[in-house]
């Protein structure tokens, strides 16, 4: 009779193993790879790799076809310590999947190596209703909504561009919104800065913004930063966010934010306007141009209004 040791030994002969760093590199590389977590649902819920789909070992052969429809797509399997997934990997190989990799040491080693994990909190009934229009979109779904709830976006400027951006990101359930603006609300703002109301005139913009956004969606954690962004605070502030949205109102800030985001590897969503003209683009470090590729230096002072 075969022992467990025998079965694992047989599997090891045909299933390659990759450690956490190698798998992380594979995931960051951009090539198509499917990650399957073969643990039980409660283990998965307590923490898993963000890219992973959960198909517990018992259902693997039944559900793998839906998760991976092309048998040549590389599949990385993991479990808690790398044993269940080793046997699961052999089963996939037997089914005809050509490239099946076992995560060496499993989820345990992944965590010990300091690799990022995510934890899904069950959505409340309120959230299921609130985001129902997202669940209907195949490109979003439950998984997409969880990504939004985990996301952290920094808005530089809570004014003309920051207002609608903040409104829609909050409505969509972006979990953490940093709002950075050192100004107070002025009556001249209210013609377009819809985040603020007449009653807010004189108050710090981030204060009125926080109140309005929380009223719209209490799920959102607003981090109010009632200061201007400066060369001394920018790197420290942006490091905690996934994305920066630059809706600032002067060239000095735009160049500072551009440079800081590039140096920190942060994607910078840029929007700017002048009278009846607007422009938008995304500056993603090392994927596309930066602001200085377009405009290496600012226009002479006074020539183009801020």
């Amino acid at each position: 009779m075969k022992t467990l040791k025998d079965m694992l030994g047989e599997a090891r002969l045909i299933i390659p193993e990759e450690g956490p760093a190698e798998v992380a590199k594979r995931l960051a590389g951009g090539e198509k790879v499917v990650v399957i977590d073969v643990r039980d649902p409660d283990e998965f819920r307590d923490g898993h790799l963000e890219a992973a789909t959960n198909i517990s070992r018992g259902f693997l052969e039944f559900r793998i076809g839906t998760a991976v429809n092309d048998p040549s797509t590389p599949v990385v399997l993991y479990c808690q310590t790398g044993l269940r997934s080793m046997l699961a990997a052999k089963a996939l190989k037997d089914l005809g999947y050509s490239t099946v990799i076992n995560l060496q040491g499993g989820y345990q080693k992944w965590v010990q190596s300091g690799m990022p994990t995510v934890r899904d909190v069950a959505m409340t009934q309120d959230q299921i209703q609130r985001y129902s229009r997202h669940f209907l979109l195949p490109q979003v779904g439950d998984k997409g909504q969880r990504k939004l709830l985990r996301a952290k976006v920094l808005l530089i400027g809570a004014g003309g561009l920051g207002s609608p951006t903040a409104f829609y990101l909050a409505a969509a359930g972006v979990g953490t919104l940093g709002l950075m603006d050192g100004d107070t609300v002025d009556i001249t703002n209210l013609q377009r800065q819809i985040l603020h109301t007449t009653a807010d005139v004189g108050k710090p913009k981030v204060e009125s913004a926080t109140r309005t956004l929380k009223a719209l969606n209490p799920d959102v954690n607003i981090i109010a930063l009632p200061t201007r962004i400066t060369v001394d605070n920018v790197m420290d502030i942006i490091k905690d966010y996934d994305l920066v949205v630059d809706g600032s109102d002067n060239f000095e800030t735009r160049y500072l934010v551009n440079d800081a985001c590039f140096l920190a590897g942060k994607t910078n969503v840029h929007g700017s306007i002048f009278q009846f003209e607007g422009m938008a683009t995304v500056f993603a470090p090392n994927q596309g141009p930066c602001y200085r590729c377009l405009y290496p230096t600012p226009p002479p002072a006074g020539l183009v209004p801020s």
Partner: protein
Amino acid sequence: MKLLLGIGEPLIGRLLTYDALGMRFREVRLRRDPKCPLCGTSPTITDLAIHRNGAGGACDVSETDGHREGVGAGVAPKAGG
């Protein structure tokens, strides 16, 4: 939203311009500039030091002729937000 969700085609490498009076959108392809002082092949900006001497210090960057890519595409810089 697309960036957070990993869907669709965000405006990386594209500039979308909007003329609200004429109700026209225009798309301009953008390229990384190998001579860019920040993200080019031989960057001269490797930290934020130039922002310390007021007005962003951005004018002190290089002797290049200004708004290459953007103005070449007929898109004037804007700071409003």
